[in-house]
């Protein structure tokens, strides 16, 4: 693929790729190094002679200890995990069923319903958070995990439905017809024949939905108020900044530890994630 002399290979390939990698990954390295850096080194102005940005010889676990002892970080992690898992499961169930109906059944308004779901896919959360916060309050859901478990599916279901439609359309009609001739009902054919074939799609939709709900911020910020109900992003923002004072060590430790679960989930399903990402775009 790469043609020409070795210097061309370096100039047009290795160096640009390395620069991209540094640009994209440096903030994570910075998070990591800050987490283990003692406060004395952390708050050393960049003009100081002994400013050593890229390494520390005195690694410390103080920031992580602070996070678990002085804040409710463990609770936030648990909350985020619970909310992300529950809303992912709800969205997958809804998305798979709706995707099946829209892709494989003939009924009036199928086309316009599909378009409608696609349009809700494009509604950003920031458009609706104020009226939604009122509704959440009226339903007495405010400051409970359910306020998020029920609202996250609004941006997850359209995406799951859209992705699953693509997978279901690819399954040949004959497969279902065979099962029906053998005596299966429509429901059984869907449950035992079509859905198992679409498992890769379900995994893609699931991992994608999980990362999206782990990432969500504005609903969690507006709907939750007490520290023990918060998710990681909201907890880190509201409890580790006091007025103008940023607790950078614990903040970075929180950012790092709050990213790890989602990074692990992602690393197990990279291929599914990528196919979910690209599938959601191509539709």
């Amino acid at each position, binding site marked *: 693929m790469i043609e020409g002399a070795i210097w061309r290979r370096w100039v047009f390939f290795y160096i640009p790729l390395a620069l991209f990698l540094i640009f994209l990954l440096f903030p994570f390295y910075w998070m990591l190094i800050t987490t283990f850096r003692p406060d004395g080194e952390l708050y050393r102005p960049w003009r100081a002679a002994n400013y050593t940005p890229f390494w520390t010889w005195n690694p410390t676990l103080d920031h992580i200890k602070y996070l678990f002892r002085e804040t409710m970080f463990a609770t936030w992690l648990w909350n985020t995990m619970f909310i992300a898992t529950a809303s992912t499961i709800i969205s997958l169930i809804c998305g798979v069923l709706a995707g099946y109906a829209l892709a494989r059944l003939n009924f009036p308004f199928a086309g316009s319903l599909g378009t409608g779901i696609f349009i809700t896919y494009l509604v950003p959360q920031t458009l609706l958070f104020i009226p939604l916060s009122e509704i959440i309050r009226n339903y007495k859901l405010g400051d409970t995990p359910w306020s998020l478990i029920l609202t996250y599916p609004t941006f997850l279901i359209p995406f799951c*439905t859209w992705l699953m439609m693509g997978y279901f359309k690819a399954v040949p009609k004959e497969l279902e017809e065979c099962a029906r001739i053998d005596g299966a009902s429509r429901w059984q054919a869907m449950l035992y024949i079509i859905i198992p074939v679409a498992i890769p799609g379900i995994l893609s939709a699931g991992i994608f939905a999980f990362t999206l709900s782990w990432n969500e911020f504005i609903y969690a910020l507006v709907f939750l108020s007490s520290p023990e109900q918060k998710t990681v992003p909201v907890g880190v923002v509201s409890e580790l900044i006091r007025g103008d004072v940023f607790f950078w060590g614990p903040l970075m430790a929180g950012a790092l530890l709050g990213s790890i679960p989602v990074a692990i989930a992602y690393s197990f399903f990279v291929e599914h*994630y990528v196919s979910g990402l690209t599938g959601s775009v191509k539709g």
Partner: protein
Amino acid sequence: MAVAASTSTPQRVIVPKAKWRPLENERNLAWLLLLPTMVLLGLFIAYPFMRGLLLSVTDTRVGVPGEFVGLDNFRRLASDPIFHAVVWNTCWYTFVTTIFKLGLGLWLALLLNRSFRFKAFTRAFILLPFIIPTVLSTFAWKWMFDPTFSVLNWMLYQTGLIRGAINWLGDGDLAMLSIIIVNIWRGVPFFAISLLAGLQTISPDLNEAAAIDGARPWQRFWYITWPLLLPVTMVVMLFSVIQTFADFQIVYVMTGGGPANATHLFATYAYQLGVGTGLLSQGAAVSLAMFPILLLIVIIQLLYIRRVEVR
């Protein structure tokens, strides 16, 4: 079942009675399967949208049920200098970041489309900015941009690019530049991976044939790769433009809209009005003001995508 089996012949049992008749009708089954989705989307998208419209024509504040005031909120926005800045900021932010995300994302996709060692590994790592919760990674950037402890200043100083400190988030233009950089950083992986998937659907035969005919690499890109990639590019842009236009997290963490409202976007201004000061109806009006613009963007892009796909 047991009763049915004992009173009729085996052949007649299996076929009709195993099925629950109403669900054999495609229409009934379809509505049943769509029901949970319709309920959730109706309750938490359609209904809030209506409530938002109603809210924006009242003068509701937190704890004070409002009265109908017509279009007063929108009239106030039309003469609100901060709102003017918000509209300009949002358009500029969206425009600049989209251009750079497309350019850099395409470049990265072309690099990744070659075969080299650790390709799968590289691709997995490159997506990290897109996976990691934006608020958390934006804090890392805020820390890197910190005026006193900035590692970026240190790097620029060491390489001789600057002589004095740069107060990244303290100056309006620099703060805008900072949030633009963070948004580009977060969005490039999405563009790169999606465009890479598009590139992989283009048959290498086409490029080889053109190469045999004497086309230079640049010509091959411009006359073969780019036109074939255009449909995917347009869809990726559609998603990115909407997300960027409605962005909240990066600005909220980096600047909170400041300094002096220089980086306020629709979402952060709506948040400040609606949640910060409790002027619910004005906040709702600001975020609803996004809707016509978003709708216009979606319609234009969908029409364009259709035209590209027909061609």
